[in-house]
C-alpha cells in the first residue's frame, strides 16, 4: 500500500466571517506537519479532508478521486480529533478495537495488534478502564493506539501529542513514524512544536488566517532561512 496524495484545488470555505482558501498538495506516502497560529484553520483543513465540512467551491482530491459528495464514512481517511476521541461507555480496549472492526468482532490477529498498540503507547495495564478514569494524556494515547491499529491510507492527526511529556511524545512520534514507514501511509498532523515537526515530518504546511502561506521540506523551516511568517509564529526567540 502506498498512501495517496491529497490535493487542494482552490478549495474555498467560510464560517461566517472566517474565510478559508486552500490550494496545495500534500505529498503521498510521507508525513506532513500542519502548523500555524491558533485559529488559522488547521482543524478546518483536516475537517475538509475528512468530509465533516464541505467546500464552498474548489475540489479536494485524494489520489485521483474527487471527494465532493463522498460521505465521511466513504473516504479512505482516519482521523484523530483535537478533542473527544473516545466513547465514554466503552473500555480502553474496546475503544481501540473499534479501529480494527466497527462491530468489535476481533480475530486473534486483531487482538494481537490491539495489545501491541496498547503496549507501545504505554497503556497496557489500563485495558479495562473507562475514559473518564484516565488522565488527559492517557486518553490521547488511547486515540493514538487506535490510529496505530487502523489501516487507512490517509491518517489525519489533530494535535495528538499536546498532553504528553517530552520523552513520551518522542516515543509516540517514533511509533507513528514506524507505522507510516511500514504501511506507506500519507500522514497529515497538526502540531505547535517545531521539535515534533523536525523529528517526524518530511514536509511542513504553514497556515495563517485561512491561507497556506508557506510550505516546503521540514528542514527548510527549522533553520535560519525559515519563512518570515513562520518565524513570527515562533516568536522572536524561535
Amino acid at each position: 500500500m502506498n498512501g495517496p496524495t491529497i490535493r487542494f484545488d482552490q478549495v474555498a470555505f467560510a464560517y461566517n466571517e472566517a474565510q478559508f482558501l486552500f490550494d496545495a498538495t500534500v505529498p503521498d506516502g510521507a508525513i506532513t506537519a500542519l502548523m500555524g497560529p491558533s485559529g488559522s484553520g488547521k482543524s478546518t483543513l483536516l475537517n475538509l479532508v475528512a468530509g465533516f465540512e464541505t467546500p464552498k467551491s474548489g475540489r479536494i482530491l485524494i489520489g485521483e478521486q474527487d471527494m465532493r459528495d463522498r460521505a465521511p464514512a466513504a473516504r479512505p481517511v482516519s482521523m484523530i480529533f483535537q478533542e473527544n476521541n473516545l466513547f465514554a461507555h466503552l473500555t480502553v480496549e474496546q475503544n481501540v478495537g473499534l479501529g480494527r472492526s466497527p462491530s468489535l468482532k476481533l480475530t486473534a490477529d486483531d487482538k494481537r495488534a490491539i495489545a501491541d498498540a496498547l503496549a507501545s503507547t504505554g497503556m497496557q495495564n489500563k485495558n479495562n478502564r473507562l475514559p473518564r478514569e484516565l488522565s488527559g494524556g492517557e486518553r490521547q494515547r488511547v486515540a493514538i493506539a487506535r490510529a496505530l491499529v487502523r489501516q487507512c491510507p490517509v491518517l489525519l492527526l489533530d494535535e495528538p501529542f499536546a498532553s504528553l511529556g517530552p520523552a513520551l511524545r518522542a516515543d509516540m512520534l517514533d511509533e507513528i513514524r514506524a507505522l507510516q514507514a511500514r504501511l506507506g501511509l500519507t500522514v497529515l498532523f497538526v502540531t505547535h512544536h517545531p521539535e515534533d515537526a523536525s523529528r517526524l515530518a518530511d514536509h511542513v504546511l504553514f497556515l495563517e488566517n485561512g491561507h497556506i502561506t508557506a510550505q516546503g521540506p521540514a528542514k527548510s523551516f527549522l533553520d535560519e532561512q525559515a519563512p518570515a511568517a513562520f518565524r513570527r509564529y515562533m516568536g522572536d526567540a524561535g
Partner: protein
Amino acid sequence: MRRIPADPRLLGGALALGMLAVLIGGAFVGLIAEGARNPQAAWAAFDFYLLRIIRFTLLQALLSTVLAVLPALVVARALSRHPVFPGRQLILQLFAVPLALPAIVAALGLLALLGRAGFLATPLGALIGEPWPGIYGLSGILVAHVFFNLPMATRLFLEALQTIPTDQHRLGVQLGFSASNTFRFIEWPALRKALPSVAGLVFMLCVTSFTLVLTLGGGPRATTLEVAIYQALRFDFDPARAVALTLVQLALTVVILAVLSRLGADTAGDANLSVAPRRFDRPNARERMINVALLVVTVVFVVSPLAAIVFAGLFADLQRLAFETSVRSATVTSLWLAFAAATVAIALSFALLRTRHLLQSRRPGGRPSLFERLTDRGAGYVLVVPPIVIGAGWFILLRTMTDLFALAPIMAITVNGVMAMPFALRLLRPAHDDAATRHDRLCASLGLTGWNRLRLIDWPSLRRPLTSAFAFAMALSLGDLGVIALFGSDAVKTLPYLLLERMGSYRTADAAGLGLFLAALTLALMLLSDRLGRSRR
C-alpha cells in the same frame, strides 16, 4: 465516614421527597384511621378473586409494556436517524396528544376505527371471514394501552437519543460504523440508559389503568387491582381494604420494576463540550425505506384514532360551543389548574434530579444510598397510588376543616402535579444529567450557585427539555379528571369534567366537540412549547 457538607441541592430533593411522603403518607394515615374501625376488612381483601386480578393485572401490564416499548425504541431511532424531514415536528407534537385525552374519549376514538361498527370493521371482517368481533377483551386493552404509551415512550426515547454528544456521531462515521454498529455503540447505550425508566413508567400506567380496562376489557375477567381499589372506596367504602390493596399494587410494581431495572445500566456520561452540531451519517436507501415504512405505520396507528375523534368532533356545533360561557370558563379553569400542576411537577422533578445527580457524583462506583434511590426510581412509584386513594385519605384528614371546598383546587393541583412528575422526570433526566456532568465542576470553581446557576446555566441549557416537559405535564393534567371529581367543587369545572357531563346528559355531539377541543388544545400547547423551547441563537 466523612461528613457531607450541607448543600441546598440536597435540601431540594429532601423537600420534594418530604412533600411526596406527606401527600401519600397523609392519605394513608387518613384511610387507616378510618379503616381501623373495621380492620378485618383489610384481610377480607385477600380472597379468591384477588389472585385472579393480580394475574390479569400483571399479564396485561407486561404485555402492554412490551408492545409499547419495543416499537417505541425502533420508532425513536428511526426519527433520530432522520433529523429533518417535513412534518417531523408535527409528528412529535401529535405524539403528545393521546395522553391528554380523557380515557373514554380515546376509547371511543379507537372503537370508531376498530370497534364492531368501526370504519375498519368491514375490511377486517372480510379479512377474517366472519363479522368483526371488535376489540373487546385483552386485545382491546392492549391496543388502547399501546395507543397511549407508544407515542409517549417514543418521545422519551428520542429525548434520550438527542443527548448523544454530536462528537460521537463524528467518531462513528470516522470509524466506518454501519447502521447496526451505530445502533450498538452509540444509540443503544443512550436508549438503554432510558429503557428501565421508560418501561417502568409505561408499566405503572398500565397497572393503574382503569376506564380503559373496564370499557374495553369486556368484563370482570379483565379487571385490574385498580378497579378493586376503586370498588373498595367507591362502593363499599372500606378504607382498610383500599389501603391493603394499594399496598399490594405498590409491592407488585416495586418487584417488577426492580427486575426491569436490570435491563438498563447507568452508563458513563460524557463531560465534554459538544462541538460538532450535527449528524454525519446518512441512512442508506434500504434503511431509509424501512424507516419510512415504520414511521408511516406508527403515525397511522396513532393518528387515525385521533382523526376519528376530530371527525366526530366536527359534527358538533363548534362555533356555539366555543362561545358558551361554560366552555370558556372550563377552559380557563383547566388551563390554570394544569399550569399550576405542571409548575409543581417541574419543580419537584428538578429538585429530585439535582439531588440524585449530586448524590451519584459523590459516590464514584459505590452503591447508591437509600436517599439516592428514593430520589431516583422511588419517587416515580407515586404513580401506583391511585388518585382516589390520595383524595379520599386527605378528605378524611381534612374533613373537620371549615372550608373543604376551597381546598379542592389545591388538592387537584398537588395531586395532578405529583402524578405528572414521573413523566417530567423522565423527559428531563437525560438532558439534565448530561448538562450536570458537563457543568458541575466548572460552576463550583466559578462560585456559580443557586439562582445564578439556575438562571445562567441550567435554564438556557435545559430550556428545550424543560419547556417540553412543562407542556407535557400540562397536557397530562388537562386530560385528568380524577381528583376534582372527588372533592366535588362546582367552582372548579374542568374541560374533561364538562365533557363527561355532556356525555352523561346525552349531548354526544358536544362531548365529541369538546374531545376535539382538548386534542387541539394539547397540540397548541406542544407547538407553543416548541417555539418557546427553541434556543434564541
